[in-house]
């Protein structure tokens, strides 16, 4: 589990930022992106995959979250 920040990218879409690794990459896909369910599996532009526990409401971005590495 690692702390991450998801924020709105200036070019549209989302940005994934992990302070510990200085990783700043665009998010390619997000599993759940609905008003009542947000989160799930994340695929980053560089191919890495992370999982965040789905939230009941869409958060206001940027948001600090805990993410788990998949695979």
């Amino acid at each position: 589990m690692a702390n991450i920040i998801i924020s709105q990218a200036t070019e549209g879409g989302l940005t994934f930022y992990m302070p510990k690794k200085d990783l700043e990459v665009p998010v390619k896909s997000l599993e759940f992106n609905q008003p009542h369910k947000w989160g799930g599996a994340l695929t980053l532009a560089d191919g890495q995959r992370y999982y965040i526990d789905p939230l009941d409401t869409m958060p206001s971005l940027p948001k600090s979250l805990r993410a788990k590495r998949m695979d």
Partner: protein
Amino acid sequence: MAKLNKEEAQALIQEVLEVYPEKAKKDRAKHLAVNDTAEAKTCVTSNRKSLPGVMTIRGCAYAGSKGVVWGPIKDMIHISHGPVGCGQYSRAGRRNYYVGTTGVDSFGTMNFTSDFQEKDIVFGGDKKLSKLITEIEQLFPLNRGISVQSECPIGLIGDDIEAVSKASSKEIGKPVIPVRCEGFRGVSQSLGHHIANDAIRDHVFDREGGSEGIEPGQYDVAILGDYNIGGDAWSSRILLEEMGLRVVAQWSGDGTLAEMEQTPKVKLNLLHCYRSMNYISRHMEEKYGIPWVEYNFFGPTKIAESLRKIASYFDDSIKEGAEKVIAKYQAMCDEIIAKYRPRLEGKKVMLYVGGLRPRHVIGAYEDLGMEVVGTGYEFGHNDDYDRTRNDVGNATLIYDDVTGFEFEEFVKRVKPDLVGSGVKEKYIFQKMGVPFRQMHSWDYSGPYHGYDGFAIFAKDMDMTLNNPCWSKLTPPWKQRPEAEQKAVA
């Protein structure tokens, strides 16, 4: 010498690495690369521990916190808590200019230290610290607050500076901020920046008994990560004010505690040094919903680009203001470029600095027709290198945490016309006959930010590069054989 192509640059790196033992070679190879704009990511490893035995140019966490982030806040007293040396040898070295009467209401260039002795190491220095704070309050009653910047021994002996700070804060009725920036933390000064940012977040924002501040306006902005080296923040500030924005805070050059407390109410955070203040910008974005934007005030091309980028966050009056500012200074810039470009055209530069400069000053050099053939960060992270990739051309050498040996070898082979780095490198290269500018504090010159700064930047580069002294480095008695040879021929 013509610029190296990609293969030559790769070969150069391999050749330089040859002297290291196998393990060190493997490690250092990851930190050196040749830029390739076609690739999606940089392949430079950064923010790793320096190798034992090599000459690194990095600083420590205390340098990052006291020297960079906290030190320039002028109306607070920053105690270098620990032995006397750390504070004394770094005192006033960074030339963070400020307005105020030193010793009365401003304390920027003064050194306050608890001067640890053997007995403090053995019995702990908490009592000394609390006595010191009481004394400071008596002697300098106009201070607005105190920060306790820990040096290595504080962490080693386990002093509880947080408890002392809390008690002392109650006693003097002003904020006393403990900062756990012991020098041994992290691999470079970079962690010191982070610790300092976190201390501001925890102890300055939403502080009980903090000042009310001024009425927030719709054009309020804060300058983050500008340390007013030689007056940099002032030459940036006037441009922003001319385009109609209200600069309510400067972090932290010429800054005050009240300005920091005002910052959560601004409309936009302007971030110059990404490395040292992105942490607090991200925090303010999340907690207070303040967007932040990176900008670059080196050289007219980048200034115009940045002014337009900043203006895009505001309404049309600001956008018009930005265009007016750009138009107003255009004539001045053309004049500077017309004067200096012919003298500097085609010259090659190698940089090795910290923070934002390895990528930010490239634009200014390009405006003068110069080319950056090598650049590197002392303490950059991956995100810095990702940002650098687009600013430099193909086949540019990129070196992270370069060692003294590697840097010298690169300069010997690439033969740049100018090297920009710190004071530790200055005299080595000058003795080698390479023109050198100390780019940490602008070689006792400055400001370099903004349009006014560009004029000084261009003059300084010309003054250094075209100085007649560089042809006089070989004494006449050593020159003679060559002259005779010429005569014979």
